[in-house]
């Protein structure tokens, strides 16, 4: 009886094993297209041998040793880190190609084309300085340029803002992922209850979440006893067992003064060390790349404003001023104009001279030289001392055939204001014959300037600049035909300037564009490289964990045959039982 019973047990174990095997195969085949699925494999072993006759043993069937996920944990770790790199690079590449699209270079609608048109207009003005139409063209081209620069900056700023909101979103998402992982940790530990690795589905799920989290931030994981994983960001733990410290963001000002989100641990607001992942990519793109480009275009615009105004401010249009107020306020009228911290302006005044030319009703012109002292006697000129110097030189009560009837003052907003006191008097500005002797103080204060603004954000043609006040020449004699200033501005297209360390305005712009293009190309290349690594690793993972239908078909046939065999065996044993039962009859 023991024999028959034992034989039935063998058959039963075979049926169970084959059935289970088919189930595993079926499950594998069902998940063949599930990307995160790791195929399972059933491990069988013969059961304990039993003594059929003394000294002789036979097996008692088959037992299922294990049904295991086919995974390489080390490989999964590498995939996680590679996917983090890839995500980071992808975000940067996308951001930079958006920036490139905003600049729209190599087309007809870009800053460099407008810049060429702008300088072209000035060069043309040199040859026909008295042509008011050409003066208007200069203004128009100036507006075209500044509008485009402003639009470009706004476009890039929008990209930065968009990246910033993505950062905020990603932080929230990563935070949710961290909570889910902490929760899964708890479930896995509970469900496995000492049977390590038995909760395949939960683990697959957790692997997937870890992969997702890793796409957001650079994490490292360590599995601890009981099946939970501890997740670190840099050297600080983020998730320990069922607890996530949580992540959030705080507002921080960047180099351009924009308020941006900084990623921190929620429990203590300390910054996270981000080295890869989508968040790292977003932050790098937002701060270093896009932020850098905004800084770059601001610096460039500041240089352009300074260079053109320095020339333009020391010349005259077809009309003189009856009053003029500088565009730029200083923080402290007693601060040296050479001290950018003191004035709060982005430019420093240089040592040199300028002239104020006062014209009376009958056309007499009297020039007064104002010397701006910077770095000579230790006490540099301030806005207040400039006003004093102008008033001393143009003292209305002073001697001379012309009443020096103009007066300078500091207005309520700490700007330079100059006005003619008598009706019919006008004044203009001019520079010394030797250009090297000129001071840029009027440009710094925004007097008689062409451009207004202090960065690309507010870069514009001075409001109220009409063709009469476009400066074409540096002439105290009121000769409308002098076009030397227009010529000098026009030649800035190709002559080196101090603001850009001897590079010309165009060359400087082109080289900045070159840097952006190079950065964009580097981001593309980095992404491609990281993606190839990721794909290689993914292929490796697929090779280990992926489901092959052919293999599963073979398994299916094998288990089917095993099942048929076991069933047949039970039927034989049954017949044998029948035979024995017949003996009883």
């Amino acid at each position, binding site marked *: 009886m023991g024999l028959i019973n034992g034989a039935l047990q063998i058959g039963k174990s075979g049926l169970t094993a084959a059935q289970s095997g088919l189930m595993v195969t079926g499950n594998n085949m069902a998940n063949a297209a599930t990307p995160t699925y790791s195929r399972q494999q059933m491990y069988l072993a013969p059961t304990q041998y039993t003594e059929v006759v003394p000294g002789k043993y036979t097996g008692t069937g088959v037992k299922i040793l294990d049904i295991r996920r086919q995974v390489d944990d080390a490989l999964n770790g590498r995939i996680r880190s590679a996917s983090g790199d890839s995500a980071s690079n992808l975000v940067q590449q996308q951001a930079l190609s958006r920036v490139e699209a905003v600049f729209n270079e190599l087309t007809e609608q870009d800053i460099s084309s407008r810049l060429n048109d702008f300088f072209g207009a000035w060069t043309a003005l040199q040859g026909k300085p008295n042509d008011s139409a050409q003066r208007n063209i200069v203004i128009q081209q100036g507006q075209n340029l500044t509008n485009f620069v402003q639009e470009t900056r706004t476009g890039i700023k929008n990209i930065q803002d968009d990246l910033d909101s993505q950062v905020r979103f990603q932080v929230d998402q990563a935070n949710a992922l961290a909570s889910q992982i902490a929760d899964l940790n708890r479930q896995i530990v509970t469900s496995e209850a000492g049977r390590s690795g038995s909760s395949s589905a939960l683990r697959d799920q957790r692997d997937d979440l870890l992969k997702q989290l890793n796409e957001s931030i650079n994490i490292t994981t360590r599995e601890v006893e009981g099946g939970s994983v501890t997740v670190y960001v840099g050297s600080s733990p983020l998730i320990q067992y069922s607890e996530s410290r949580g992540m959030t963001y705080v507002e921080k000002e960047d180099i351009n003064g924009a308020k941006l989100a900084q990623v921190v641990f929620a429990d203590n607001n300390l910054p996270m060390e981000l080295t890869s992942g989508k968040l790292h990519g977003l932050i790098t793109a937002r701060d270093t790349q896009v932020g850098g480009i905004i800084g770059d275009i601001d610096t460039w615009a500041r240089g352009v404003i300074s260079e053109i105004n320095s020339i333009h401010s020391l010349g005259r249009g077809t009309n003189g001023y009856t009053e003029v107020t500088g565009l730029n306020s200083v923080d402290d009228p007693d601060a040296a104009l050479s001290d950018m911290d003191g004035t709060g302006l982005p430019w420093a005044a240089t040592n040199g001279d300028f002239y104020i030319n006062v014209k009376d009703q*009958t056309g007499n012109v009297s020039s007064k030289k104002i010397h701006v002292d910077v770095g000579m006697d230790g006490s540099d000129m301030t806005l207040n001392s400039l006003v004093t110097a102008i008033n001393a030189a143009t003292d209305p009560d002073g001697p001379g055939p012309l009443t020096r009837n103009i007066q300078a003052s500091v207005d309520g907003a700490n700007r330079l204001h100059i006005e003619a006191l008598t009706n019919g008097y006008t004044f203009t500005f001019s520079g010394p014959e030797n250009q090297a002797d000129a001071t840029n103080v009027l440009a710094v204060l925004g007097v008689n300037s062409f451009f207004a603004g202090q960065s690309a954000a507010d870069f514009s043609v001075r409001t109220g600049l009409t063709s009469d006040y476009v400066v074409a020449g540096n002439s105290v004699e009121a000769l409308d035909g002098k076009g030397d200033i227009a010529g000098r501005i026009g030649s800035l297209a190709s002559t080196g300037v101090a603001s850009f360390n001897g590079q010309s305005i165009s060359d400087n712009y082109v080289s900045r564009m070159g840097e952006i293009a190079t950065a964009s190309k580097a981001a593309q290349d980095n992404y491609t490289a990281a993606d190839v690594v990721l794909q*290689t690793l993914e292929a490796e993972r697929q090779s280990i964990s992926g489901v092959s239908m052919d293999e599963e078909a073979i398994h299916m046939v094998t288990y089917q045959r095993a099942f048929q065999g076991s069933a047949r065996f039970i039927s034989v044993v049954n017949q044998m039982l029948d035979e024995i039962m017949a003996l009883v009859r």
Partner: protein
Amino acid sequence: MTSAVKPTNVARVSMLLRSNLLMDSVRSNSVDLLKVQNQLSTGLKIARPSEDPGAATSIMNLDSLIERYKQYQTNIGQAKDYMDQTDSALSQSIKLVGNAHTQALDALSVASRSGGIVDFDSYIPIIDGIIQSMVSQGNSVCRGSYIFGGQNNTVPPFEQTNGGVLFRGNLSELEARVSAETQQGFTVNGQEVFGALSSQVMGIEDLNPDITAATPLSDLNGALQEGIRKGSIIVSDGTNSVTVDLSLCVTVGDVINKINTAASAATLPADRVKVTAAISADGTSLSLTPTVPAGNITVNEVGTGYTARDLGIHLTVGGGAGVLLAGQDVDARLSLTTPVTALHGVGGAGIDTINGLIITNGQTSKTIDLSTATTLDDILNAINHAGLSVRAEINNAGTGINVLNQLSGSEMTIGENGGTSATDLGIRSLTLSTLLADTHAGAGLHNANAIIRITDSSGASANVDISTATTMKELIDLINNTVGINVTAGLAAVGNGLAIKDDAAGAGTLSINMVQEDNYHILDQLGFAVGNRSVATGGTLKGNDINPIMPDGVFSHLIALRDALTHNSTTEVSAAGALLEADHTNLIKMQGIIGSKTQSLTTRKEHTEENLLAANTLRSDIRDVDFTEAITRYQNLYTALQGNLKTGSQMVNISLLDFLS
């Protein structure tokens, strides 16, 4: 096809791996195909700078270069228009002047045939018409600008006024940028073509201004006459020394401030350089004074600089303890803001601003008041805005003032108003040093064999042989040194001209007469017209200025011809005719110059076109797609995609399951 590289080093192929690989390769193939398709449809190799940053920056640089070349072409075109207009105005002018000359010859020939009866009245309207036509040629316009006005081209440069032709233009050329390095002038001024301004440079004397703290270094000729080459100097008091960087200095005051600040910069008083820099008492140089008795000042150059030498304070071996370093004259040039008090004047005693001066141009005479002038600018303003059609300006060398007559056909004289203002400023038209040969607009004083007889009020008379005099001073000295008469000759104290004062206090009159009939013009030539050759006792015989300034050009000559015709003077007509003939030649020469300038512009234009073509070709090489290459690549990619799809579809489709029944 870089992106199509796919990992294949695997031991097992799962279904997802196969489909993923297929997907990736189809995707990358499609992306590459799209790029090539885009290149083929736009004809451009590079759509975004990041596709090839190096090429992109080259393209952008070339774009801006191309734009500049185009602008240069426009500028050259405009300049050529000007030149063409100038050429046409000159052709017309040549015809007009030729016609005037012919009219003069015709008038003379008619006169010679009519046996001494001279009536030129019929010619006057013709010449007047020519003058008017010439004025309108002088006011020719190109693109809204008066082409002969120089930089003052918004107002007509020539105007018929006060019986003359006034030139309001400016002599500076208009310039256009025709290449990155070159600005080419494309105007010729009214002076060159029409001789519209008096060419005589009057302010020959060096007014030698003092330096002040505000004097720009660029207005100094420097002790070596090389200007001021800015750099660093080493100042020592014999014990301590300091290097002073003067490279950013703009004015003399800056230099002094820099030296004084650097000298006292050391924290410890013992380490300071005990020297004070200042402008020397005579106002011509810098001086350095030791502030301690033992100070022995030296000033050295840094490296191979010239700064100390240019500033006139280079001293390698000190003069000894306590000795002041008196610099050399740094020779300041004049500028508009030079204070009147800084001017030494021709006599060296400063400028007489109290009396002022008298300028006469044609019929208009004005006294120029200098009493309120504080700067040179004020003096120039006073002269320029007196309504005299004269222009005062600083000469090119920055040493003196030039006063130019802008009114063709009118004589300008500059004299004193009882003081020395005109002399001090060096702008008196007739001075003691005037060469007699230069007077009368260069025709000279014909004083060969000239003897004049002067009779004073006491009746005493003497012959004065003035044939040996070559200058006004010699002429005056000859009169003053003549024994037997009691007169004082000199230049007029008010106005200008030779003045002979009667000192005899007799009962008669002071008179001047000619002695030799063969030189009967001499008294006229000395400025004493008939009727102005005697004056009552104690009076002064005042001659006219014999060295007036008049523009020596077409308009003056046409007006002279017209006046000669009015006077019915064959001599004058003949003289004016000769001058007009010379003008005719001059105008033809000018036309030649314009022609060669136009030619050079044409060459420049061709050159720019070549450059433009080269830049365009280069840009095309970099930017434009090579269609053969692109099409080949397209074909390759298309084949690859085909293979991909075919093998992929088969591999994905087949499974063992197909064979299980």
